[in-house]
C-alpha cells in the first residue's frame, strides 16, 4: 500500500496532541506534532484496530431501577460496538447484583467480560 496521511488527536493524556501521521496502512512511516513517545503506541494501535472501553446499561428485574450500568473490563475493538450493544439489548438481569459482577463473559470472543458497575439491591 502506498503511503497515506492521517490526522490523530492523542488521548493518552489531557494535552491531546494533534498529530499528522504518514503510514502505509498498518505501520507508521513518520509522525509529527506529538510531545512524547506515548503517542506512538497510541497511533500504532489506532492504525491497526482502534480499541475502547464500552459503557452502557442492561435491563434488570426486581430492582428499584429498570436498568443497571455495565462496562467491558478492558478495551474492545470500536468497530464491534454496534454488535455488542445488540447482544446486550437481549439481556435481562435479576436483582440483586453486586458491583463488578459478571454480566457476559468473553463478549463476541474479544476476551473482554461485561461487568456491572454498581450494586443493585433486590426490591
Amino acid at each position, binding site marked *: 500500500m502506498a503511503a497515506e496521511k492521517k490526522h490523530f488527536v492523542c488521548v493518552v493524556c489531557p*494535552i491531546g496532541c494533534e498529530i499528522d501521521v504518514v503510514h502505509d496502512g498498518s505501520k507508521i512511516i513518520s509522525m509529527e506534532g506529538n510531545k512524547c513517545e506515548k503517542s506512538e503506541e497510541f497511533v500504532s494501535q489506532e492504525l491497526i484496530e482502534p480499541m475502547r472501553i464500552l459503557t452502557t446499561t442492561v435491563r434488570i428485574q426486581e430492582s428499584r431501577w*429498570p436498568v443497571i*450500568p455495565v462496562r467491558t473490563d478492558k478495551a474492545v475493538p470500536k468497530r464491534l460496538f454496534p454488535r455488542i450493544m445488540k447482544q446486550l439489548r437481549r439481556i435481562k438481569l435479576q436483582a440483586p447484583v453486586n458491583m463488578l459482577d459478571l454480566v457476559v463473559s468473553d463478549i463476541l470472543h474479544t476476551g473482554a467480560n461485561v461487568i456491572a*458497575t*454498581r450494586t443493585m439491591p433486590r426490591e
Partner: protein
Amino acid sequence: MIMQVDVAVIGSGPAGLAAAIHAHESGARKVLLLEREEELGGILKQCIHNGFGLEQFKQDYTGPEYAERLIKELEKTGVQCFLNTLVTGLSSDKVIEALSPEHGALEITAKSIVLAMGCRERTRPSIGIPGTRPAGIFTAGVAQRFVNIDGYLPGKKVVILGSGDIGLIMARRLTLEGARVIGVYEIMSYPGGLKRNIVQCLNDFDIPLHLSHTVTEIRGKERVEGVVISKVDSNLHPVEGSEKSIECDTLLLSVGLIPENELSKKAGIELSVATNGPVTTEIMETSVPGIFTCGNVSTVFDIVDYVAHTGAVAGTFAARYASAKVSGSKQSVDVVAGENVRLLFPQRYGFQDDLVLFVRAAEPVEKPVTIEVTPPGSRISRPYARPNEMLRVKIPRGKLAEGKQPIKVSIREK
C-alpha cells in the same frame, strides 16, 4: 425532631461524601449527611461513562464505581445519613431546617456546616431561544438520567446545542442506543468540553462539531419538528442569511452549569459574581464563619478529582472548627484575576493552609504558558492554557508571608 450535631453536610455527591469522610477522619464525633434523593452518590449515579478518578486514584472508574468506592469508605465511618431529606432552610447561626418522610420536620443545629449541593443546568429560558414550546427539548443531564437510570430513550433524531462535557457524552450515548445525532453546535469559537471527550464522543462516531453556530429557532407544535441553525459573528450575534433548517425530534442543551446556592443566599453568605458560588478561602470557608463549601456549589469544576479534593479540605476544616469553635480565617486577602484569567477559585486566602488555586483562562493559548502568582512571585509552567480545562496550581503555605496585599494571578505566554 430537634437535633444537635458537630458537622452537617448538605448533599452526598462526590464533594459531600469526601467532606463527610474527612470530617469523621479529622475527629468530628457526630457527622450528619443530608441527601434529598433516595440513594447516596449524587450525579455520579447517572454518569455511567469511564474516566473518573484518573488523578485521585490512578484508576479509570465509571461514575457509579467512583461513587460506590466513596460510599464504602463512608460506611466504615459510622457517619449518620438521612436520605429522602430535603433541606429547606439554612441560617447564619448554623441551624438547618429539613423535611423527610422518615424523620418529619427537622431542626438541626450544627457546630459547622459543609455545603455540597452541586450545580444545576442552564435551561432554554436562560439562553432565550425563540420559537414554539413543543416537547422534546431537554437539558443534556436530564436526558442522561432518562437513558441511564430510567431506561428511556428521549428521542431518535437529535441536535445538541452547546459542547459542554455532558452534551458530548450524551452524543455518544444516544448514538450507541440507536438514535441519530445530527450534530453538536457551539456558539463559541472553541469547544466547551474536554478534548478527550471531543475525540472519543464525537470523532469516534463521526458526529460533526460546528463551532461559532447556534440555534436561533425551535419549530414544532406538540413535538420538536426541527430547529434553525445560524452562524454567529465575533460578537456572537447570528449572521443574517446563514440560517439553515434542520429536521429533528429532539434538542439537547449543554449550555453551562450554575452552582445551586439558594440555601447559601438564605444564610446571607456572600456570593462571587464570577463563579456564582460563595466567596471562599483556601480552607473552603465561606463569608459566614463555620459554614464551608465544596464541589460544584462553589464553582463548576471540570473533573471529579478536583471536586473530591475540595470536599476533603472542607470536611477537614469543618471538623476543626467544630472542635475548636474558633473561626478559621481571622485575616485574609483577596485573590484577584490578572491577565488572561476568566475565573479563579478560591477568591480569598487566609494564611491557614497551602494555596491550591483553580484557574480558568479567558482565551486559549496553545503554547507553553507561565502562571504567575504575586505575591509571592511564583511562576509555574504549563504546556498550554485552554478555557475548557481548569489549571490547578499549588503555592505552599511557607511561601506566603502574611500581609495585606492582594494575590494576583496571571497567565502569560512563555
